[in-house]
């Protein structure tokens, strides 16, 4: 690579120092601030210092989050919403994306743009609450799951269809020649070839659903609160201005599940997202 050798000797150290400082200020300091203050007493955390705690109060702070804002219950609710929405999304979108990529019928050609409008235009949450009230689902997890499916299917279809269009038709045609049904072909030929884009879509959609707060706030009651709602109700009270220790302990506990998954599967996640991005 000739253009690399031509750079001045100070280029690389300078680049690394700027990147290092940026990473420290933009990622290191914010995360450290949250972590270290979640271990302090309320009075010490009010100073929002970056130094280590004088008195370690971690057990009490985290216990407060577990007990007072019922962490395990909202964790369970977040898991239910994420898993159920994801399952419905992929059951609905994978066959549809393949059909959009292959079918030449007028109906599917008309339907595709209508499905992917949602990528730019989110569905309306207030009338969704109105509808959910009509069918007595308002305030329950199924209401949020249905809203989430309506909200995210456009993105999933968009990512999958773009990828499916680029797949070679020959393998599918060969499966048809051997007498396989469309469903069988989808399962044993198409889905294996779509593994990378399915993974990318899964990662992106999981992060979006897990972190959603807008849908839950309008559609769930406090009894069915998800993690973000629990964080908000703990932090928006009068105590917020002073109780940084418990607010940050809550931020740690809300973010931890995704961060742990990220540490375990960091490479695949970054690659998956890049791939999804190229296709998107």
């Amino acid at each position, binding site marked *: 690579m*000739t*253009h690399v050798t031509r750079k001045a000797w100070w280029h690389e150290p300078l*680049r690394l120092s700027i*990147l290092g400082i940026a990473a420290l200020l*933009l*990622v290191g300091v*914010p*995360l450290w*601030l949250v972590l270290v203050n979640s271990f302090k007493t309320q009075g010490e955390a*009010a100073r*929002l210092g*970056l130094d280590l705690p004088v008195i370690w109060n971690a057990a009490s702070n985290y216990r407060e989050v577990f007990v007072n804002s019922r962490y395990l219950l909202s964790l369970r609710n977040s898991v239910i919403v994420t898993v159920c929405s994801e399952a419905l999304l992929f*059951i*609905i979108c994978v*066959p*549809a994306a393949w*059909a959009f990529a292959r*079918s030449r*019928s007028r*109906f*599917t050609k008309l*339907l595709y743009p209508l499905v992917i409008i*949602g990528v*730019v*235009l*989110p*569905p*309306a*949450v*207030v*009338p969704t609450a*109105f*509808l959910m009230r009509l069918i007595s689902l308002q305030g329950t997890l199924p209401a949020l799951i249905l809203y989430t499916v*309506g909200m995210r*299917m456009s993105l999933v*279809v968009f990512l999958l269809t773009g990828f499916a269009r680029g797949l070679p038709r*020959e*393998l599918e*045609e060969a499966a*048809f*020649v051997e007498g396989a049904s*469309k469903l069988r072909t989808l399962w044993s030929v198409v889905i294996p070839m779509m593994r990378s884009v399915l993974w990318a879509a899964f990662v992106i959609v999981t*992060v979006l659903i*897990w972190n959603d707060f807008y849908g839950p706030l309008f559609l769930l009651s406090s009894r069915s609160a998800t993690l*973000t709602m629990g*964080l908000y109700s703990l*932090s*928006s009270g009068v105590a917020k201005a002073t109780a940084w220790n418990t*607010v940050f302990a809550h931020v740690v506990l809300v*973010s931890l599940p995704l*961060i742990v998954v*990220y540490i375990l599967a*960091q490479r695949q*996640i*970054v690659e998956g*997202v*890049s*791939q999804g*991005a*190229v296709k998107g």
Partner: protein
Amino acid sequence: MTHMQTAAVTDIGSRRSTSSVAVRSVTAGSIATGWWKFVVPITLAVSLLYFLPLLINVYLAFSNWSGFHNRVEFIGLDNFRTLFTQYNLLAQVRLTFTYAITASLVGNLLALALALALEENSVTNQIFRAVFFIPVLLSPLASGYVWAGILDPAGPLNQGISVFSGGFDFAWLGSRSLAIYLVAAVDAWKWLGFFTLVYIAGLSTVPLELKETATSMGANAWQVFRHAKLPFLAPAMTYNITVTLIGAMSTFDIILATTRGGPGNATRVLNVLTLDQFGIGYFGLASTTQLVVTILITITAIPLVRFLRSRELEG
């Protein structure tokens, strides 16, 4: 596509050519038809979960639906009148656009700079990419609390400035003029790692020979960027600008965690206004505000996507 797949495809292709013509025409028929079964679920889902709420929204926007009585009646333009007079709708619209444009501008400039710095696929760069991606995983709500702490008068930002000018004390989020730009910058920060990856993916489509030729002809870094890399970045740019701008127009979480619309109404963007109205039982009015958001996004998205697409074709 991997080489192995390519090999498998050509192999099957050659095998297929030996099969009889009759079989092929039968399969061609079955390939072309019967797709409707695969789109039945999504047709139902998109009609009931997406278009039905949007349609009902139009009706509810002209209704007196509220938490105070059971009937939902048509009341004409009353809600719009209330929005313009009591809620100063135009100011909220301007605020929403200010937020969206700031978030998009800051996010895209930083992401582009970061992508150019991390373009080569070395181990250190992969580590940096992974580190800058961490905030993407935080919920916008949690990000809001993190930055509420940093920007707090007692927080690390003021502590840092105090090192240079002792006892610096400023309530960043309490400033009526600055607050909206700061919360928009938090939005940009949260998505930075994601949009950087999109730009890096775009940069990977620039042919290596092009960069080398440009450099060997004596082009400086800016010229290489402008004439060799930028044209290939157009699709990534289309994607990033559209997503940041449109996404930021329906922002909500970060503001609730940092300023909750304040100080005064200085950061009360349309979605926060919707929640305020919904929270006090004015459901019809909340629907009207939501309809305004829908209309704004639609009239922004259509020309934006068209403009950015046309730039892509020019290259």
